[in-house]
């Protein structure tokens, strides 16, 4: 287990190193000159030269990368063009709302996906199964911004059940969490269905039924516990999927997280913020994948440790 852990950790570090190379490379593709972005259009050549030296742009590329990596490791993500403030504290201050939203979305997708999957598995091949699986396709085919706006229109504007947006109360969280989590709920319902069908084939299920146990108890007591294991292992991977979704969902609901920050940065082409959010998101994804890798063998010893 310890060797496996070390191997996965090393792989994660390597991937993060790769991420830094990609983001470093991307900043070289920018047509806009960073010196002009910082100094302004009316700057003198002397001022530009000074900033160029300050940024280290006069050094050879490997040295520039080394300095860039050194800054990243110490948590320095550069300075925002638009806000003229440091990117790292900005992203850090926007992280808690995003993590809260993701937690809400995970709860939402499990509350949708697990019951739907169990229902479909117990009605296998019948109308209820087909209806549930078609709905799951509907949920993964829905663009999140359309879903968000529709929920806002119906539940906040027309019926006044929830506030139109904002942040701070639990009632603010429900609609955005549902919007972010619905597609995941669709995937989970499909996974839960096949996992449950697989589990219900086992001999101990037949034994439980032969004992005269009610079907509900067979499914919930013996089936559910085993069927949910592969699903739990997937939750860590959701982070990556959510990191894309939050840009859209936070924008629709006015949720003050990194997605909204990203959206504002896109509008003003604030490259350091765009890159900063991308790097932070990548770190979370690598962490989520690492957790998924570590959790899988714990809950299912049959998974071979590679």
């Amino acid at each position, binding site marked *: 287990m310890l060797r496996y852990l070390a191997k996965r950790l090393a792989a994660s570090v390597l991937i993060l190193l790769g991420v830094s190379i990609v983001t470093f490379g991307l900043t070289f593709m920018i047509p806009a000159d960073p010196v002009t972005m910082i100094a302004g259009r009316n700057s003198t050549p002397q001022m530009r030269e000074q900033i160029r030296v300050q940024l280290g742009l006069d050094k050879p590329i490997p040295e520039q990368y080394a300095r860039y990596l050194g800054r990243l490791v110490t948590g320095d993500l550069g300075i925002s063009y638009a806000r003229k403030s440091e990117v790292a504290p900005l992203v850090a201050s926007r992280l808690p709302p995003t993590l809260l939203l993701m937690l809400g979305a995970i709860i939402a997708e499990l509350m949708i996906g697990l019951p739907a999957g169990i229902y479909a598995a117990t009605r296998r091949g019948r109308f209820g199964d087909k209806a549930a699986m078609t709905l799951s*396709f509907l949920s993964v085919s829905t663009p999140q911004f359309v879903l968000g706006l529709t929920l806002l229109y119906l539940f906040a504007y027309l019926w006044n059940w929830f506030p139109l947006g904002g942040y701070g109360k639990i009632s603010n969280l429900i609609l955005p969490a549902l919007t972010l989590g619905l597609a995941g709920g669709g995937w989970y319902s499909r996974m839960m269905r096949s996992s449950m069908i697989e589990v219900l084939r086992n001999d101990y299920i037949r034994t439980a039924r032969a004992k005269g146990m009610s079907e509900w108890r067979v499914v919930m007591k013996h089936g559910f516990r085993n069927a949910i294991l592969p699903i739990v292992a997937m939750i860590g991977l959701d982070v990556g999927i959510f990191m894309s979704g939050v840009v859209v969902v936070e*924008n629709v609901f006015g949720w003050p997280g990194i997605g909204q920050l990203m959206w504002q940065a896109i509008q003003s082409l604030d*490259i350091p913020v*765009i890159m900063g959010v991308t790097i932070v998101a990548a770190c979370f994804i690598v962490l989520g994948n690492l957790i998924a890798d570590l959790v899988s063998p714990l809950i299912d010893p049959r998974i071979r440790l590679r």
Partner: protein
Amino acid sequence: MGDTWKRFHCDRLAMAGLVTIVVFAMAAIFAPVIAPYNPSEQFFDGLTLEGSPLPPSWRFWFGTDTNGRDQFSRLLYGARTSLLIGIVANGIAVAVGAALGLVAGYLRGWTGAAIMRLTDLMMAFPPLLLAIALAAILKPGLNIVILVIALVNWVQIARVIYTETVALSEREYIEAARALGAGNLRILLRHLLPHLIPTVIVYATLGIATTVLLEAMLSFLGRGVQPPTPAWGMMIFESQSYFLNAPWLVFIPGAAILILALAFNLVGDGLRDALDPTQRGRG
């Protein structure tokens, strides 16, 4: 092939998806003939006196947008953007991903390892954020959107094809082919690729659904194709601030995106069942 079509034909949902795709494709191809107006024309009577968009009526079937343009005509031309990007961008991604997955799975060794580590790296980036960062750096436009989506989408198919190729390469008939003196290229193209075609077709179809959604998100964020080219995501973005008063401006293009993505998902799922009946009903 005949059996596959027969199985697919019996799958009512998949057939409904196929019919929907054909209808959308026809609408896109014949947009200039069907569209009642020029999609960029701003009508003087296309807005109310207060300057808000018109609801659906006989003159403007799906109402007008915030600039007084005919929403129905824009929707038809928007289908061109969605389908073009969906098919071309995903086509490139599938071709590149399948080729890389095939080579990595057959050669393995350090070439395979390098390709697979590259997919690991790509998986660390949220697709939308990477696409936005790229589209923000490069000047947005049709070609760039296609390039960006292809760059983000090749990863999944590469991993799937890699896994299948590794399994296939260990089969005896590949060894037999090699013993008979077949070269690497011949084995790849004549002995491995044909067995992978069903997987490629399924993932290519499902991938179009993902691409349609990604393109819509990019254009909703203003980083997709640029105006005046109509795109469904952009139509929603433009009318977002009006949408409590004019919800049809969001619902109609939104429904179009949903229906098109759903259709490709249903066809892809139907193809998976039809091409590989042993997997039927296993989700």
